[in-house]
């Protein structure tokens, strides 16, 4: 027997709740902004520069002892955390004054100290060092990449639909990106290059979801010439609701598998993606479509645009 996640036909008056959902979104955006500008992001060495060492020990070491031992090396700020298992420790050391030799020396010092305290059986799983030039470049490229992709998608939507949809899609997109960054700030998950990849994928996913709803709205505008815009938007969201939920669920299934079994290195990425898919789904229903109503999309706009249905879109009555 097949299970239907969503009843065959739904008639949820989504638009009726738009001021509530706008309110929720506004609160979350403000919270994200506050967390971003206040406590800020837990920037990894990709963006902050510095040294990161992941070391596997034979026996789980005492973090307190290790913290004071490494803190006594005069390397400035040293932070420790277990990484997936109690005997797997992630050590982050701030960037050292001076050239790359100073950084390499710091890595040596940490290793010597760890061996002195824990014996020889340490396996170095990862050693990373990012200098100030590279981290500055990574920040610039990351910001640029997000901006360029948002603009490129905006142009695509503008060409395929018309400007109201562009505004709505970008509104939903910016909403998702801000909330995702806020999620990073609130949870303290390390923000690194992979996080940027996650944000860009969320951008793609969110737009994907939004476009499906918009496609239906455009189609319904042509089909129901007399219907109230608000009812038409509601109808379109309801008609695509089953698909929206289905795709979110399959994507989430894959991402949850990645989160649970994909290993510690990828967990931050998986977390961000899971959050992004949920937010992206929410926004395509509760942000992207209602914005169209708020900025005054009407039948008139559609006709003015002079859109001619192509063969593929023609209705076979």
């Amino acid at each position, binding site marked *: 027997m097949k299970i239907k996640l969503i009843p065959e036909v739904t008639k949820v008056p989504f638009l009726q709740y738009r001021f509530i959902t706008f309110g929720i979104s506004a609160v979350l955006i403000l919270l994200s902004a506050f967390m971003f500008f206040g406590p800020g992001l837990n920037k990894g060495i990709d963006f902050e520069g510095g040294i990161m060492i992941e070391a596997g020990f034979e026996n789980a070491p005492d973090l307190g002892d290790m913290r004071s031992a490494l803190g006594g090396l005069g390397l400035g700020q040293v932070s420790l955390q277990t990484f997936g298992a109690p005997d797997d420790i992630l050590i982050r050391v701030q960037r050292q004054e001076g050239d790359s030799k100073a950084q390499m020396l710091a890595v040596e010092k940490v290793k010597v100290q760890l061996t002195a305290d824990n014996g020889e059986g340490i396996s170095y799983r990862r050693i990373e060092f990012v200098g100030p030039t590279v981290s500055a470049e990574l920040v610039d490229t990351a910001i640029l990449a997000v901006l360029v992709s948002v603009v490129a998608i905006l142009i695509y939507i503008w060409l395929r639909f018309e400007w109201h949809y562009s505004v709505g899609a970008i509104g939903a997109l910016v909403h998702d990106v801000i909330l995702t960054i806020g999620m990073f700030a609130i949870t303290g998950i390390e923000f690194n290059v992979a996080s*940027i990849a996650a944000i860009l994928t969320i951008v793609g996913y969110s737009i994907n979801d939004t476009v499906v709803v918009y496609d239906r709205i455009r189609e319904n505008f042509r089909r129901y010439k007399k219907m109230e815009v608000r009812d038409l938007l509601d109808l379109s969201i309801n008609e695509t609701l089953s698909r929206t939920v289905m795709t979110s669920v399959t994507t989430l299934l894959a991402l949850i598998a990645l989160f649970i079994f994909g290993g510690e290195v990828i967990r931050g990425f998986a977390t961000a993606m899971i959050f992004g898919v949920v937010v992206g789904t929410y926004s395509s229903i509760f942000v992207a479509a209602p914005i169209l109503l708020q900025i005054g999309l009407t039948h008139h706009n559609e006709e003015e645009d002079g859109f001619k249905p192509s063969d593929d879109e023609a209705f076979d009555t």
Partner: protein
Amino acid sequence: MISFPKWKAALVVLVCLLGVVYTIPNFVSKSMLEQLPEWAPNQHINLGLDLQGGSHLLLQVDTEDIQKKMLLSLKDTVRASLLPEDKTKRIGYRNLKVSGNSVTFSLRSGDDREAARQALLPIAVMMPTGQRSHLIEISEDGSQASVTPSEQAISERIGAVVVQSIEIVGRRVNETGVNEPTIQRQGADRILVQLPGLGDPQRIIDLLGQTAQMTFHLVNLSGSATSGSVPPGSQRLPSLNEEGRTYVIKNQIMVSGENLEDAQATFQQGQPVVSIRFNGLGGKQFGRVTSENVGRPFAIVLDGKVVSAPRINEPILGGAAIISGGFNVQGAQDLALLLRAGALPAPLNILEQRSVGPDLGADSIEAGKIAGIIGLVAVAVFMIVVYGLFGLVANIALAMNMFLIGALLSVLGATLTLPGIAGIILTIGMAVDANVLIFERIREETRNGKTPFNAIESGYKRAFTTIVDANVTTGIAAVILFVMGSGPVKGFAVTLGIGIMCSMFTAILLSRMLISLWAQRTRPKTLNV
């Protein structure tokens, strides 16, 4: 009527077969692959350094050092131009120095202005672009004169140094016996070194951190050995291996390490030493200096530090010598290696190091496999639960999608990274989207009272534009990630992009073909989507 032309079906089947055939090598051991005939597909997916373990080093050539050296040598050239061998042509100047990006001086007499210009003109050679390599400016009264290298001359020089550095880096890395290192230029002044399998590249970093310029100098015995002023023409240099000890050596280079032909680590009286052999010119210079200075100490200087300063007991004429300096075995081996590989023309800075131990790489692959399989099974089960037979079709399309991704990654020689695996797993979830769109459409059409054939037909037709729109937008994000992303993130973009393309193919063509075949064969009266 549902129609799916035979030629189209043949094409789809062919593509799918190719997908399977080109993915298979990844499941076959290397030795078996070698036994296959040459025409058989044998490309593997390349594993990134984060999966197979290894190190990524981004080095930058010290361009400031290059410019400094360039200006110092320009200063010498200017001096030589103004004071030629022919004494009648000599031009009086004072205050010759490097200042900022120029070499400046002032002429003793403004009358020499034109003569000075003529003397300096050969420095400013014509470059292929039609510009002169240097700008020569002399004020009216000759009191202010400067020679400035053009931007282009500088960048040309930097380019030459970078090329030369890559050569030396390559030789040093190869000498250590690392497997399949890649060394390539990146941008104007950077060198990317990738060392597969090397999780802890400390030794290579140490080796690349030295320019290894070796010179031989006479020791100035009139200078105090520990502190105090240094006589002109000499300088105080620290000892390489003895903490706190310094030497006062004469600046003049008697023999240069450039003239070395070979260097080997060996033992002398149980101590590790480096035996060196000069080429013809170096051997002659070395022979002359040692003949003329018997009984005096002779300093061996490496990158501004004195390795040792042994007394010359007798002239050394054969061009071979021994360097001893309190080395341990590794130290002697490394010095020999550096001398063999040659000196770097400028110091290198390490901008970025990323090393992954082989066990973390193996763990990541294992975790990726498990996550991928579980994700795949979860999605597949869910699709069957929701869509029944149609879900099965979507699953076949999904499985084929995985093969096509594997085949494309193999054939393109793309590198699979950990984020790349994440991209594939994400694709598992998103790839069914196209089929979901189609099936939901078919459900709707059925509800609207269409016959099964018509519902299927128009379901595919109407979902098509939506699928294209939805995938193009995700595709845009993938392309931008690929173009702008670095290293591992690029790997994510590649798998995401390939995944999107393959999922469109499998949803629009493969699943449609399967459903058409099924519908034609069974002629269903009702659709149970």
